[in-house]
């Protein structure tokens, strides 16, 4: 055993020595600072190829029109695709917009983000606070809340579709109990309620986990001192827990905000964006315009995706600014 270990160490050292000479030579030629770029190069190449090149291509598609995919075959139209998307008498009324389906998707996405993120952060916080206490079967409940996160979004949507469809489990239960049944996914308001609900159900466990980690990082002696001072529990929550949990909450808020704006797969499988366009969010609009309809309007899809990327960029910058400000304050 000792011999094998010694042989392994010798092999490792041999390989290391083999690399040392060329690396030293490279360092002499490039200098110590430039050598860092050599180490970064593989990652930069991959990042550039799969992130920056597509972004540039997206700009190229957004400023051209037609249904051809080769950029050279597409006529340049400047900002016409953006102008077409923004052509509205009133942005509050999609019916007055030239691209009414885009603005319906924008409105739906706005409401979805507000409701889904708001309720998810609230429920995640309440759940994390409960699961952080010394309750019976704490480990079991933590697993239960995290379990949906492990499921594929398509599986989540199919499970809920079986529950919510006309002859689904929920209606069967209501019927058995003597209540009337509801076409949950065919009524616009109910369909929207369920996409928010299912999205919260599927993703909440992830944020509960982050918040639990945040709660457990709060030093116990702070609570002990408060207990000794006779501070009531609700006051401890407001004055100790929430302020100290705020950096974690900020991370949860921004992550959930970005994921909510990008929501697509669960909703697409659950409702297909319907009824009508009641649950069509921005990503589905981009998918429909760019891939599902004929002819494929790549230019419009690219312009819409760039506008959405702009919103996400602003949100991310706001989060960075808020984090930095808290860091400076704190």
């Amino acid at each position, binding site marked *: 055993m000792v011999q094998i270990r010694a042989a392994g160490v010798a092999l490792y050292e041999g390989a290391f020595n083999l690399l040392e000479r060329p690396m030293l030579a490279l360092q002499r030629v490039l200098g110590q600072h430039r050598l860092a770029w050599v180490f970064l190069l593989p990652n930069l190449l991959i990042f550039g190829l799969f992130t920056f090149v597509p972004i540039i291509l997206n700009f190229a598609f957004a400023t051209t029109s037609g249904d051809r*995919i080769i950029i050279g075959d597409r006529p340049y139209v400047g900002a016409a695709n953006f102008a077409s998307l923004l052509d509205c008498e009133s942005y509050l009324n999609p019916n007055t917009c030239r691209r009414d389906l885009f603005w319906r998707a924008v409105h739906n996405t706005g409401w979805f983000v507000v409701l889904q993120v708001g309720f998810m952060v609230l429920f995640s916080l309440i759940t994390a606070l409960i699961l952080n206490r010394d309750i019976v079967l704490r480990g079991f409940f933590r697993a239960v809340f995290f379990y949906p996160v492990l499921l594929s979004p398509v599986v989540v949507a199919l499970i809920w579709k079986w529950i919510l469809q006309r002859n689904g489990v929920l209606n069967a239960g209501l019927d058995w109990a003597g209540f009337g049944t509801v076409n949950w996914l*065919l009524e616009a308001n109910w369909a929207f309620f369920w996409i928010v609900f299912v999205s919260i159900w599927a993703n909440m466990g992830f944020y509960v986990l982050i918040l639990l980690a945040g709660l457990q990082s709060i030093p116990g002696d702070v609570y002990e001192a408060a207990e000794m001072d006779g501070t009531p529990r609700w006051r401890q929550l407001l004055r100790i827990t929430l302020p100290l949990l705020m950096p974690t909450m900020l991370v949860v808020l921004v992550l959930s905000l970005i994921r909510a704006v990008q929501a697509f797969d669960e909703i697409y499988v659950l409702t297909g964006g319907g009824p*009508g366009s009641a649950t069509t969010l921005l990503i*589905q609009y981009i998918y*429909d315009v760019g891939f599902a*309809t*004929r*002819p494929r309007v790549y230019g419009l899809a690219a312009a819409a995706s760039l506008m959405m990327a702009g919103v996400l960029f602003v949100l991310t910058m706001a989060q960075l600014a808020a984090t930095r400000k808290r860091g400076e304050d704190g």
Partner: protein
Amino acid sequence: MKRILATTATLALSAGMAHAQELRFMCYQDGTECQAWEAQFETFHAENPGITVIVDEVPYAAIIESLPIQLEVGEGPDLARVTDYGGLARYMLDVRPHVSDADAIEARYGQSLAWARVGDNAPDGIYNIVDQLTATGGFANKTFFEQAGVDMPEPGASWADWAEASRAVRDAVGVDFAMAIDRTGHRFAAPAMSFGAALFDDNGDPILVDDGFRAFAEQFVAWHEDGTMARDVWAGAGGGTYQDAAGEFINANLVMYYSGSWQIGRFGRDIGDMFDWVATGAICGPEACTGMPGGAGIVGFSHTQHPEAVGAVMEFIARDDVQAAVLAQTRNIPANAMLQEAGIAYEDVSEDVAAALTAFAASIPSFSDTAYALQGYANNRAIYTSIPARITQAIVGELSLDEALERLDQDIADALAEAQ
């Protein structure tokens, strides 16, 4: 010596390459079409020792979504089984120079050959051999009609007759739905034309919304409001998403279902002897009794390295004996005029299936010229996807019908501008 060996090796390699022509055939199937063709290619390989056809079976979504993108960048298979002739026309190979008897193919497949002769394609080119002619039409649950004691409308009855009879049956037997139509503009177009929709002007340019189209759209929305139509099908999705009601019909939740002949094999297999069903034959509106023709066919692509070999395959596919063998196995309606006349000896089919195949084949002569024009129209997919998106908005109350029809016209105009 080395030079002689190298030259010999090069010659041997070149000779081998010249003989071994491998063609990739991207195939989707509704039933067993790909297996049937794979079996027939054994005969082709025996007759053409230098050519090998490899069948790559793919889902229909790959034909609709991936294939056009592959072709756009000059990649993809040598042959494929497709349905979107207009959309793929610009990538297709004219095999007329590579077949020995173009007139025979023209005589047999003339009507469906026109579907790919669009855009810049040659007006006499041979681009597609249709191996599955389809026709839209209705299916009715005969057992329900018998249980309800309601007379089933005869072939040639009107849409109003079917709506009234289906409602009566639904109420009598207590099932969920009276009628359903697949959620696609392709299915919507047939009754719209029967209600008088012209779809094209005298120059062949699309004029989607006219009085006839509006009349059927109003009726269709009204049938959703009064519960005649299954709301789940059209209101159950958004955008141009396709959705059928075959599951509801198979599960005996639906009295009358308007879909197409491609469902026959599935109904024969899945319904079995659970209940009796029939094809309704032609259903009429105030102006016509048309359905929509369509179908899958095999096409070659112009980027192929072996156009002669593709021509040989296409000529083989078009042969009467080969088509008859494939159709007998796949239980499809022939596009080949000779076989339409002679009939197909379908293998192991039930009474329901045989009767349905006959009824659909019999309805094809009543199809209007407009229906064929729409099927051959290069941008028909834009129409097929825009109709469900906008009509559904009227059904669920997001837009008034007038607004929806106005938007529909605008969508088509935008799509055509983009396609140019």
